[in-house]
């Protein structure tokens, strides 16, 4: 399986561990990734300013994927995945929009292709690669680990766009964790948002949202929180210290990307998966892994 990959801004500019671990794990599972010719924004932050310009950027991402000659596009960021999926949906139901965006793309030497399939890490692994294949490929299954999953918001909502998992009871990330030999917990804050979008306007509220969730998880004594979005990782991992200050708690919960966890089970070196870049105390988790 060969597919194009659209990284978005946050992965390319700061969440390097996600990029490193995605680049490491997929070839081992038979998925070859091809970078796009140019790196641009998906349009996510532009939606608030000008919906048309945001749709243009999203359509441009699909047009760039079109240049690779491939029909599948991996979008590992939840927000980019939502923005591109929504723009695609809007262009499907609004011909005038599609034509106007098509004209603009032409001025940039590009062509919009509605037939590109958009994938996220979760559905690519769960539905295309498959749990069986992952199980067969795992070299070092986990034992006795209890983990919590955070699928995030924009990858599961809203269903009209066709999202990767159930909007109210996402299970795929849990199943992907379970297949590696670790247990997962159900917890009442599971659907709570990380708050990342609020960093644009209300930093304190954003940190409080992230902090409350980690605080609740610490109370459950889980070994780590597993995420699959660079914005969620930023809030729960990179900003964990400040999130703790915001909620008046000492937070020290290991937080990592699912692709990092998967990489460990595939026996890839921690450093190649960017685990040295996580700001939370992932060492606590690493010492619990089988030798």
């Amino acid at each position, binding site marked *: 399986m060969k597919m194009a990959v659209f990284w978005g*801004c*946050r992965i*390319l*500019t*700061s969440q*390097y561990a996600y*990029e*490193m671990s995605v680049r490491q794990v997929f070839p081992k599972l038979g998925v070859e990734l091809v*970078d796009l*010719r*140019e*790196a*641009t*924004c998906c349009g*996510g*932050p*532009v*939606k*608030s*300013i*000008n*919906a*048309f*310009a945001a749709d*243009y*950027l999203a359509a441009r991402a699909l047009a760039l994927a079109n240049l690779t000659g491939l029909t599948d596009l991996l979008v590992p960021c939840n927000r980019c995945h*939502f923005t591109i999926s929504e723009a695609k949906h809007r262009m499907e139901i*609004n011909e005038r929009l599609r034509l*106007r965006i098509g004209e*603009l793309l032409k*001025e*940039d*030497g590009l062509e919009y292709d509605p037939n590109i399939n958009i994938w996220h890490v979760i559905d690519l692994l769960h539905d295309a690669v498959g749990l069986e294949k992952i199980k067969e490929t795992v070299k070092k299954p986990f034992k006795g680990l209890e983990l919590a999953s955070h699928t995030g*918001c*924009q990858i599961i*909502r*809203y269903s009209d766009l066709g999202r990767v998992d159930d*909007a*109210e009871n996402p299970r795929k990330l849990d199943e992907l964790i379970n297949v590696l030999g670790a247990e997962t917990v159900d917890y009442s804050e599971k*659907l*709570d*948002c990380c*708050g990342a*979008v*609020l*960093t*644009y*306007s*209300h930093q304190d*509220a*954003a940190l*409080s*949202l992230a902090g409350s969730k980690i605080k609740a998880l610490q109370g459950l004594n889980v070994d780590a929180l597993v995420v699959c979005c660079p914005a969620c990782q930023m809030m729960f991992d990179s900003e964990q210290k400040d999130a703790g200050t915001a909620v008046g708690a000492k937070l020290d919960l290991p937080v990592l990307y699912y692709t990092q966890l998967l990489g460990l089970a595939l026996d890839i070196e921690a450093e190649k998966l*960017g685990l*040295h*870049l*996580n*700001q939370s*105390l992932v*060492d606590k988790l690493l010492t619990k892994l089988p030798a």
Partner: protein
Amino acid sequence: MSLIDLMSMAKPEKESMRKVLAKLGRSEFIDCFQCLKCTSGCTALKLLELKPHEIMKLVRLGFVNELAASEIIWTCATCLKCVQRCPQKGSPYHVIMALRNLAVEREAKVPEAYLKAVSQILENGLSQTIQKITTRKMETFDRTSLKLPKISAPKESFQTVFLKALEEKQE
């Protein structure tokens, strides 16, 4: 007889309502029966007092100018629960985004970070600046030392066309 808000003396305004409808791509507002499913699940309710059902009601009554000038529309966390759960497919999130776009057109106060993101995209295609990461062991890394491929910036025509998209008259 017409409606008037006795607290602010604001009156409903048809033209602004029409603009919001156009942005939503609808011919009329949905029948929100104030079930509060949106507000009861709203991520921004507890900390920032965002009440999507009130926004739905105010827009329906025509108090669009007041909302477009208000800071409340910038408290949405984009968790999309209201879109998912609205039994009328009213989608408060999309109404809020339409109000934000209207606020920008009217040059109302917009959180700086959004404007900065747009200007950065114009500059080099990405909404954020490239960062160096200091690890838990106080070592510093960037894309080069992590052996990650160089970021390829968009061609020059990108800026011209994106600017055109930003200036396109929205309806």
